[in-house]
């Protein structure tokens, strides 16, 4: 009984994270803020989902694979976000300094 409860809690947290991710993705104006929201959801939300599934199903070969997926996501997600942000910084001439109103749009 305790296992599904913990898993459900983790899933609910993950849903909250995904909800705030999508809210941030649509409501923020500037590209770096939006990217921050998206990357947060990608890493934390997926971590919570995978952790919940591991708790729900117990230790087995499948949950070992899930841990591998978790490690892969943790490595690749932030690196990809970092690269996209680098692209924005490289292509935007105002980046690093003050942003004009046009950039924020």
């Amino acid at each position, binding site marked *: 009984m305790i296992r599904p409860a913990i898993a459900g809690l983790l899933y609910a947290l993950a849903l909250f994270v995904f909800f705030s991710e999508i809210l941030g993705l649509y409501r923020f104006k500037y590209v770096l803020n939006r990217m921050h929201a998206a990357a947060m959801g990608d890493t934390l939300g997926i971590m919570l989902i995978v952790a919940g599934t591991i708790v729900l199903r117990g230790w087995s070969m499948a949950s070992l694979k899930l841990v591998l997926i978790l490690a*892969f996501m943790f*490595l*690749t997600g932030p*690196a990809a976000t*970092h*690269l996209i942000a*680098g692209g924005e910084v490289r292509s935007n001439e105002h980046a690093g300094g003050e942003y004009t109103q046009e950039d924020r749009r």
Partner: protein
Amino acid sequence: MKKLSRFNDWVDGELDFPLSTLHDARPERHERGRHHSMSDSRSLSAFSKVYALLCLLVCLLLVCTLLAVAAALPGFGSEENPTVNEVSEHYVGQAEHETGAENVIAGMILNYRGFDTFGESCVLFLAVCCVMQLLWSTGAEKKQKTDFGGQDVILSRVCRVLVPCVLCFGLCVLFSGHTSPGGGFSGGSVLGAALIIFALAFGDGAVSRFFSRRIYNLVRITGLMVYALMFGCYIFLGANGIESELSRYIVLVVDIAVGLVVMSTMYGFYSFYTKGEL
């Protein structure tokens, strides 16, 4: 090489196709003057309105027809589906005995339908050739393209961990295609992805050290040739008459050949889109 640059000129429109009769029409159009262009653009906008209406009509008609057909189909997952017939029963029932592959789909596409898959590999090969001809950059364009690879510390650190894992996974998928899910197409694309990540992280020079244009062409052509030869010999020897162990070996070799073709295709697309050469 000279022919290729002439082809490039023709694609760019700088060179006319030799048997052009369009030349004679050109001065005549020049004389017609510019006042036609106004009425031209007006008729163009009118045409685009009619076009949008017609498109919507066609789409609505199509969606009605297709939905009516979809409603009349046997339900999802039912056994009365006409596609579940004696052909698929034969594939599932006899595949292990006749092809030696426990993965029925691999046995099917590489053995029963081997020539079809050979055609697919040729399609990939030709796609790379077309992209190569279209995007091969000439000397002037080449200097503008800069190599961003190898500058990013975070990316190169991550890739030092990631690339060996992805390579191992790709090889695992490639080599176990006949006994478990996987096979030449999926394994080859994972290997190609590993190459692309490597090129992104450590610069294009790092890849061309062990995967130069010569080796690239060699791998590409060897894959297709091995496929053609092995499968041709297999068919010539009588296909189903061969005992199971040998034909499993043939499925594995053909799978690896397909994987090589797919890998070089993926890397070729990346290479030509980013820097216009290999």
